[in-house]
């Protein structure tokens, strides 16, 4: 990929190689240990792309705990492979049909369920969002990404990277990568989903386009109308399809410590294919947003610079979406 773009050296942090195929397991293991220590026998979780659901179902199986995963109907449809994996692991997948039937609504439903089951149930939130202490706790469990990155990149290049790039939905993989570098002179970029394009209004670019509000127990940037009603988000990637974002990302934006940009559905699909072709790696559609932006940026920078991308998950789950999109484009072209 670096040779192809003839710019900065691009490094990938391979969270896609983590057990269950994404960074999500870092956090679910930590929270399941906590649940175990607290004597809770059941786990629940919300999931969008299904990666967090699979990671939660996996740790529940490991600890012999009951597991219920809340997932929007729309996401159950577009991430069917992960639904099968969760069921195989013994979890019950609960279809959420309220609101936009995506990640936000799955979180609403998980919160509602939890308040009625709190005596024996632990809620494993999958992102650096939700009420305190989740944003802090999930960041702490995910910061291993940045710690490993630091160690490995120093080993490879003898210096810290010039830039870190990660996709941002709720923001857990980005926060995990960024946090150990906060006090270093390393540029950081969070890539949000521009969906069908910012101007279309159908996007999930919460930090770029949202305003300050309160959703799911934290004050952060949210996509909302002038009356404070939460607006539906849109992204081809179920994991980024969320109208809120972790509150620490909002702080990092306001402090101008991290730059937040966006990549649309089309660019993400192109990057998905590009990484397959160049490296034989299938990135998750979520991570493809980071890859797309990093590739564009790296091509404008000198070879002496290092751009590090968090490849937060693998994309086998997204092959169906990619192929149907490819067919859709073909159908569209053959109809002309």
């Amino acid at each position, binding site marked *: 990929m670096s040779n192809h773009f003839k710019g900065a050296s691009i490094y990938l942090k391979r969270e896609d190689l983590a057990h269950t195929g994404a960074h999500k397991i870092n956090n679910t293991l930590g929270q399941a240990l906590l649940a175990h220590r607290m004597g809770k026998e059941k786990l629940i979780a919300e999931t969008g792309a299904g990666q967090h659901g699979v990671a939660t179902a996996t740790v529940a199986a490991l600890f012999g705990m009951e597991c219920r995963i809340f997932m929007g109907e729309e996401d159950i449809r577009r991430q069917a492979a992960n639904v099968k994996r969760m069921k195989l692991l013994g979890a019950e997948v609960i279809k959420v049909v*309220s*609101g936009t039937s995506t990640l*936000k609504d799955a979180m*609403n439903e998980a*919160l*509602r369920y939890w*308040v*009625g*089951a*709190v*005596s024996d149930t632990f809620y494993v939130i999958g992102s650096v969002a939700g009420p305190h202490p989740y944003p802090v706790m999930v960041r702490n469990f995910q910061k291993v990404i940045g710690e490993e990155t630091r160690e490995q990149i120093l080993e490879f290049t003898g210096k810290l990277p010039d830039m870190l790039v990660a996709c941002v939905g709720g923001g857990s993989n980005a926060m995990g990568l960024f946090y150990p570098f906060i006090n270093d002179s390393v540029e950081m970029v969070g890539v949000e989903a521009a969906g069908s394009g910012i101007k279309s209004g159908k996007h999930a670019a919460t930090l770029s386009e949202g305003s*300050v*509000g*309160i*959703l*799911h*127990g934290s*004050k952060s940037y*949210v996509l*909302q109308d*002038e*009356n*404070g*009603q*939460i607006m539906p988000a849109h992204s081809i990637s179920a994991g980024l399809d969320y109208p809120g974002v972790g509150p620490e990302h909002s702080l990092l934006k306001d402090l101008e410590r991290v730059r937040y940009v966006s990549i649309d559905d089309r660019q993400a699909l192109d990057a998905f294919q590009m990484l397959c072709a160049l490296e034989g790696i299938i990135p998750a559609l979520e991570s493809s947003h980071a890859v797309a932006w990093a590739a564009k940026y790296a091509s404008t920078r000198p070879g002496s610079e290092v751009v590090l991308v968090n490849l937060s998950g693998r994309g086998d789950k997204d092959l169906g979406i990619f192929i149907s999109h490819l067919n859709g484009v073909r159908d569209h072209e053959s109809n002309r």
Partner: protein
Amino acid sequence: MNRIDRTFEELGRKGEKALVGFVTAGDPDIPTSLNIVTSMCNAGLDILELGVPFSDPTADGPVIQRSSARALEKGINVGDVLSMTGKLRKETAVPIILFSYYNPIHAYGNERFYKDAVDVGADGVLLVDLPPEESAEMTRAWPGSDLALIRLIAPTTPLDRMRKIATDARGFIYLVSKTGVTGSSGLKTESIDRQVDSLRSVTSLPICVGFGISTTEDVTAVSSIADGIVIGSAFERMIEDNLDDKNLAAILADQVRKYKEATLKN
């Protein structure tokens, strides 16, 4: 003395318990909704909680979720609810508490909300997702103290936290009857009894119990323990079941009389 304190004082003098009713404003539309709550107040409701609809009501069960969705389909916003409150205030002296989530209020503007709410004759505000640790952000923006911020206590709230929450509570304390969302089943009067006892050891404010109270038997049982009971989903279900009935307001008024009667049975 404000309307909430005066209501509890009068009820205390008569040896009665407060019947607090929740209704989503603007469901199915503002005129119908205004008509419903006016007749409920006239039928003997002691305190009205007027719901400001929010797109993501995470503390609410399906019944109130649907009522919020119906109101939002009509485009009901904070301004509409405030002007409805103003019209209602001309009809009744019943205390009105605006009940919502923090985001619509925050978007309206905390200072502006206070001024307009006081101006139209609202008496309190209850925001289910604004914990005491965070509420100073809102109350600091309030230029006066004519609006009571009603505090919630959960069944899982330990005594030391009850004490902390009760310290700056006003009006009354809203005790959530059980772990769960609004309208869920499985009311347990024994545990409510214990919670009310603990709460009385840290506050002298009236205690109203809500969440999952629907039958007149529930009302009688909880009335013997607390200073008031809150009914929400049961009213909302009745509205939903009779949306096309011309006598909707009268049906709700009848139910208010039945509940009020049930509070007197002990």
